[in-house]
């Protein structure tokens, strides 16, 4: 069981900055994120896009902002559970919470701050009849163990980096790799595109464009697919063992939606007049995941919400302690790692 003071669900910019504000109050944080890396949308969707409305930064790339936040919170030694999705929450008799991920990792904390953004990123599924019947019976949306495709006939669909990269990777492992895409053009790193071209010329990748999978066949497991050429409308039937559609990720509020929190407009309602607490005391929601009158989904608003949340969390964890906010220019930053940053002291010395 992982124990912490504030358990933050979502490691995007808002969740990361909450670690800093909590650290100033000597509160420890642990973050859970469904993605394999910290940074949320900034790292996953648009790391190379510039942001112009972070106060004090005329321009900063989303990926750089994440790197800076990680550097800023380093002294407060946050823990991370990455690549796992927060699944269930249980309130214990003493008012603290246990959050369990889809992989069974348990986290115990007196305060939970949901900084889940748009939700956890789930694979986009194509719209095909009986698709769910073949899930785990030949259809998979991500490749966890490439070895299971050894000597299999694999069909990959998609036109982005992951479709290209996995086609290249599996070309050496699988008996056959077919790559299906609705267009002739692929959107990916140049050398991936060139590598696929090369493997196609060598006959190691069977490229079918512009076409799409329109039907799945098989009694208990996937055995065949029908592929339609989108220009000629000609159908081809192909014997395959595995179908891996790689159509990117889309965010879903997911299991958090079933935690008994008040939901409005696909977001969690919070008390914005005070501390961004939800209808369940001890559970807060900050950043893009929350809603209140006048809500704006901006990173800078998430930073503000995270700051107020931490003050409230402190009062909740230490109801008897007196505390007033201290400026970092006055108090400096004392990390849990023993590091200390502070303003240089002025010298008092007479000039003769």
């Amino acid at each position, binding site marked *: 069981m992982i124990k912490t003071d504030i358990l933050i669900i979502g490691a995007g910019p808002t969740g990361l900055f909450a670690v800093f504000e909590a650290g100033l109050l000597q509160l420890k944080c642990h973050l859970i994120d469904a993605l394999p890396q910290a940074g949320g949308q900034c790292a996953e*969707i*648009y790391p190379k*896009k510039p942001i112009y409305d972070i106060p004090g930064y005329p321009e900063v790339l989303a990926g750089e902002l994440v790197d800076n936040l990680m550097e800023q919170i380093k002294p407060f030694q946050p823990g991370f559970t990455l690549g796992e999705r927060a699944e269930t929450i249980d309130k214990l008799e003493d008012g603290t919470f246990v959050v369990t991920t889809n992989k069974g990792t348990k986290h115990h904390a007196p305060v939970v701050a949901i900084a889940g953004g*748009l939700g956890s990123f789930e694979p*986009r599924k*194509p*719209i095909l009849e009986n698709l769910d019947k073949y899930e785990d019976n030949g259809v998979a949306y991500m490749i966890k163990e490439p070895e299971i495709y050894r000597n299999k006939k694999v069909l990959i669909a*998609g*036109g*982005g980096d992951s479709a290209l990269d996995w086609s290249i990777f599996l070309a050496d492992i699988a008996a056959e790799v077919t790559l299906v*895409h*609705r*267009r002739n*053009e692929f*959107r990916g790193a140049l050398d991936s595109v060139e590598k696929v071209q090369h493997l196609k010329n060598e006959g190691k990748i069977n490229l079918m464009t512009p076409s799409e999978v329109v039907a799945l066949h098989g009694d208990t497991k996937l055995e065949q697919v029908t592929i339609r050429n989108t220009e000629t409308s000609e159908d081809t039937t192909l014997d395959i063992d595995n179908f891996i559609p790689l*159509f*990117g990720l*889309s*965010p879903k*509020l997911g299991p958090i939606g079933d935690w008994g929190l008040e939901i409005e*407009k*696909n*977001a969690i309602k919070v008390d914005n007049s005070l501390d961004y607490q939800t209808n369940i005391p001890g559970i807060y929601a900050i950043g893009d995941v929350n*809603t209140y009158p006048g809500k704006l*989904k901006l990173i800078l608003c998430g930073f503000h919400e995270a700051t107020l949340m931490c003050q409230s969390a402190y009062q909740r964890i230490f109801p008897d302690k007196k505390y007033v906010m201290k400026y970092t220019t006055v108090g400096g930053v004392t990390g849990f790692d023993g590091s200390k940053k502070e303003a240089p002291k002025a010298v008092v010395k007479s000039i003769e």
Partner: protein
Amino acid sequence: MMSDIKIKIIDREGVSHEVDAPTDMNMNLMEVVRSYELAPEGTIGICGGMAMCASCQCYVLSDHQLPEKSDDEEAMLSEAFFVKDNSRLGCQIHMTEDLNGLEVELAPAED
């Protein structure tokens, strides 16, 4: 001040709305739909307008001359669902005076 234009938007329930869209606020079609709440928040404009999701996909019904699709829009539409020949991403269609009378239908949500 430039004038507003009239746009006809058929929502995902099939209901038609005629709305005024400003041409002087740097708005795109996705934002117009959101400002009139013609699709629930969280089901449209998820990526914020970067052509990185297809939640604002619409079918253009009138014969207005629209700007060419960018590579990003083209690529996104190639992976979206329910795509037709007249599909566009609303976030890539900027409100200009020559779009007066534009008619669009919102594509179904992906879920």
